[in-house]
């Protein structure tokens, strides 16, 4: 029999039992839809996180106090106040690979401008910070090395802070008060947008770290040192070198574990992605269980169908169908059911991904390869679970089958 005739036969017999076929295909539909959503959302989340991490800066390396998480137990990174300016100085003096390095002193404070107040994050940094984070000014200038050395009271505002304190004038050259100290505004930074964790990068005020340590009482330890290399290839070597330099200043002996962590942007991206991985795994579990259940559903219905149609099989065998013809007929039927379920699942998954993307704001990407694999796989489920019933049909004895009531 020709394939077109076979497919026509199969679809005809499926159409005769629409409701049953639809219910049978439900497992496949849900499975494929889950796969499509999973891949689309997973990809969307990943591209977004990558973009945000890249937005942090260029070839950036982050040093934080405390050892990295080991075996899931946090060492309490913020508990060790053990990064110091000595570390920064040593890196600046001795590092071969690091092109820029800056301590980051972090605080929060009320910033008072002429039009009102705004509570913001205050970062005390070095001039290199601008290079590391690749963050140009929108107007005015970044503060200078001279400002840092002289502990001058100058500040650079993030776009959000500038917009809130100076809604309708250029802040450059104006003054703001932070903890009752007047600061001259040297410049306003360009917009960077949200970070991977969803906070606003532009809600920030930068000032020389020297000034920050002098004027912002209390928090004087350094929670973070940022560094960067000129090109990407140098990053692993730079990380290695930074680790050695840090171990020297921290006087760690041969076997002592690091009491600090050196990470690059890739490490940060991977850490951020791990949260989406849970969701991906969950969807993958739903998908595989649905496909399995869907396959068993197809097998069950095909077995019922073979019994119901015993007489039909007998007639076909009597008028000259071979066992292989009957086998193919039933196999094509279950494949058609699988593929058709896959196609419906594709449409459902596609819409689901679009809706999810709309609400989360994630970009969802559905590649043609994923579609082909999804539909192909559901066809394969049809073959796998349809084979046994089809074999049963093909093995029927024509006389017995014709007598079947």
């Amino acid at each position, binding site marked *: *029999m020709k394939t077109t*005739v076979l497919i026509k036969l199969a679809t005809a017999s499926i159409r*005769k039992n629409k409701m049953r076929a639809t219910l049978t295909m439900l497992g496949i539909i849900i499975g494929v839809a889950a796969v499509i959503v999973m891949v689309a959302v997973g990809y969307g989340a990943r591209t977004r996180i990558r973009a945000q991490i890249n937005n942090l800066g260029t070839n950036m390396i982050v040093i934080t106090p405390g050892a990295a998480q080991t075996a899931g137990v946090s060492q309490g990174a913020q508990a060790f106040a053990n990064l110091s300016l000595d570390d920064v100085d040593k890196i600046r003096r001795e590092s071969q690979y690091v092109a820029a390095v800056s301590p980051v002193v972090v605080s929060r404070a009320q910033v008072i401008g002429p039009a009102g107040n705004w509570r913001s994050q205050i970062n005390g940094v070095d001039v290199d910070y601008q290079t590391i984070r690749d963050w140009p000014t929108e107007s005015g200038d970044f503060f200078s090395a001279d400002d840092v050395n002289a502990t001058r009271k100058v500040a650079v505002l993030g776009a959000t802070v500038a917009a809130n304190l100076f809604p309708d004038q250029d802040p450059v050259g104006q003054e703001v008060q932070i903890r009752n100290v007047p600061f001259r505004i040297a410049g306003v930074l360009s917009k960077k947008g949200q970070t991977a964790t969803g906070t606003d990068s532009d809600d920030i005020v930068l000032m020389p770290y020297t000034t920050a340590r002098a004027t912002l009482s209390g928090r004087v330890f350094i929670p973070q040192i940022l560094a960067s290399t000129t090109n990407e290839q140098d990053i692993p070597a730079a990380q290695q070198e930074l680790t050695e330099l840090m171990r020297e200043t921290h006087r760690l002996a041969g076997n002592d574990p690091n009491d600090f962590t050196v990470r690059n942007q890739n490490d940060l991206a991977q850490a951020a992605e791990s949260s989406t991985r849970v969701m991906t795994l969950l969807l993958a579990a739903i998908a595989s269980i649905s496909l399995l259940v869907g396959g068993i559903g197809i097998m069950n219905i095909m077995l019922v169908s073979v019994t119901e149609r015993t*007489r*039909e099989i*007998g*007639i*076909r*065998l*009597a*008028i*000259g*169908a*071979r*066992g*292989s*013809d009957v086998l193919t007929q039933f196999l094509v039927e279950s494949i058609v059911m699988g593929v058709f379920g896959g196609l419906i699942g594709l449409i459902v998954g596609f819409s689901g991904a679009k809706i999810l993307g709309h609400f989360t704001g994630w970009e969802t990407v559905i590649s043609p390869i994923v579609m082909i694999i999804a539909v192909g796989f559901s066809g394969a489920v049809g073959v796998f679970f349809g084979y046994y019933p089809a074999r049963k049909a093909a093995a029927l004895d*024509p*006389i017995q089958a*014709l007598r079947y009531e």
Partner: protein
Amino acid sequence: MGDAVIEVHGLTKTYSTGATEVHALRGIDLTIHRGELVAIMGSSGSGKSTLMNLLGCLDTPTSGTYELDGVRVDGLGKNELAAIRNQKLGFVFQGFNLLARTTAVENVELPLLYDRGGKKRDPRKLAVAALERVGLGQRLDHQPSELSGGQQQRVAIARALVTEPALVLADEPTGNLDTKTTIEVMALFQELNTQGITIVLVTHEPDVAAYATRVVEIRDGHIRRDEPVANRRKAAEDLLHVEEDAA
């Protein structure tokens, strides 16, 4: 008479179900020539259906030889038997055995779809011609549930004819039909027979056997009687009488 369509020698069939053995056929010798219309008679359980299944290549004999249309059939494999059934044989059953929810034309087309001969034929055209031949040219797209028993049996006969087989086998084709429809179907068989088609049918009714050219009676797996029909009736004429009586 022309050459032999069926040549059977020493055909036996023994069913073994568990410990007991049923000797359904105990040695049949039978030759049927082209153009004959043979009625096989016998009491229930005498082995008629068993013989028809063997003649129809639906089953294989326990022993004996069977030559169909010049081809040795006993000892052939499953697929070869399927091809023989498809090309050389046409079946008509007591219960019509049409595919439900399938139109008359599609039912009649079916044997052509399983033909691997590679002949370039238009199944639909041939199916329509076969249905016209049995007088159902007006019922092409009707499903079995929309047809009377007699009409369903005509569709089944059209399906048996569509491949132009060497032999048409009918096991109690009128078993489910009333007297008038029985005569109608027999008139059709007689008409086809005069056109040269060889037909073997099983019946319990002497009235039906009277339309055949020859009667073979089976008892306990043996042929007991095998003779030409002396006063052969013409179904077409009987049909006129039946219609007169009704009027």
